[in-house]
């Protein structure tokens, strides 16, 4: 008890203890664990953690399918090659998609930054640019799906090898594309709110009835960067491996 009181007074007097001791103090406190983190940001992080497990399981299923089949796996380098000027360039479409998504992450980070500087116009413009890049990504993914489907890739068969290639491909890229699509919709909603000045006046949200602030742009950004993060893993494990 004396120990506890001492720790509480310490916390007030000198700030939280450093390192692991601070983590223990935060989790052992009887108010809330994530002290200086708003509920919105904490909940977005917890949602992203759950989404990590979903994508983790998809990639695991893909790994299991690929490791356990005696049929050779189709070579993604050839499958995703594009014929440019009479020459087969390996994986080029996927590389361009990667650069587009990274650029959209860059513009998103800038939008968050300008939001905290309360530059409404620049923030809204950067959010719209991020949405445009995201939509371009989904468009290129639709092109890729169309190309593969016309070449005969189905969830149950494909012309080049192990049948599980198709099901893994459609499941993983489809789920990721859905995330990007919803991200684009949320980006447009956030851009409209920024443009209207909702975060300057502290307008109440439509769903949550809570006052908005420019932190909403950062929370939107967490989701968008996560979508980019997942693509980093998909690019490495599905397309490059």
């Amino acid at each position, binding site marked *: 008890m004396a120990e506890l009181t001492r720790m509480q007074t310490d916390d007030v007097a000198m700030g*939280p203890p450093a*390192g*692991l001791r*601070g*983590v223990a103090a*935060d989790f052992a406190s009887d108010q809330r*664990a*994530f002290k*200086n*983190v*708003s509920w919105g940001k*904490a909940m977005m*992080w917890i949602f*992203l*953690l759950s989404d*990590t*497990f979903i994508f*983790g*399981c998809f990639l*695991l299923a893909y*790994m*299991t399918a690929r*490791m*356990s*089949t*005696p*049929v050779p796996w189709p070579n993604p*380098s050839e499958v995703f090659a594009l014929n440019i000027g009479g020459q087969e360039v*390996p*994986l080029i479409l996927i590389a361009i998609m*990667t*650069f587009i998504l*990274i*650029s959209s*992450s*860059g513009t*998103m*980070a*800038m939008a*968050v*930054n300008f939001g*905290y*500087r309360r530059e409404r116009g620049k923030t809204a413009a950067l959010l719209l640019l991020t949405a445009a890049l995201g939509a371009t990504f989904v468009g290129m993914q639709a092109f890729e799906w169309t190309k593969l489907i016309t070449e005969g890739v189905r969830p149950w068969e494909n012309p080049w090898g*192990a*049948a*599980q290639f198709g099901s893994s491909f459609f499941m993983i890229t489809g789920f990721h594309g859905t995330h990007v699509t919803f991200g684009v919709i949320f980006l447009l909603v956030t851009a409209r709110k920024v443009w209207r000045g909702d975060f300057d006046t502290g307008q109440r949200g439509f769903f949550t009835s809570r006052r908005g*602030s420019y*932190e909403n742009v*950062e929370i939107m*950004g*967490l989701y968008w*960067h*996560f979508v980019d*993060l997942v693509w*980093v*893993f998909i*690019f*490495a494990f599905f397309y*490059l*491996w």
Partner: protein
Amino acid sequence: MAQAQAHSGQQHPIRLYLVVWGLLFVLSTFSYLVDYLGIQGYPRWTLIIVFMMLKAGLIVAIFMHMAWERLALVYAILLPPLLVLVFVAMMASESHYTIFTRLAFLGGAGP
């Protein structure tokens, strides 16, 4: 208002974001080159993993501001995904058994 005060901490120079953006472009180019140059076997897998982890680290630490968050949140979010590695080990072992049975009893037939 107190909230806005607390988060003025997430104000970082724009230059930092531009540098990370540039690094991500360079690392992605390297990942692509691994395939373009046709590097195979263990060097390929090592390079893929290294570039992947560097990119993921930059995105989480800088773009998602994890480098400046309180340690309790960092551990709560970043440690649980490591448990997926246990699942990976289990499924890898299971896959070895599956392919063994397919080769031994189905003569390499099967899906």
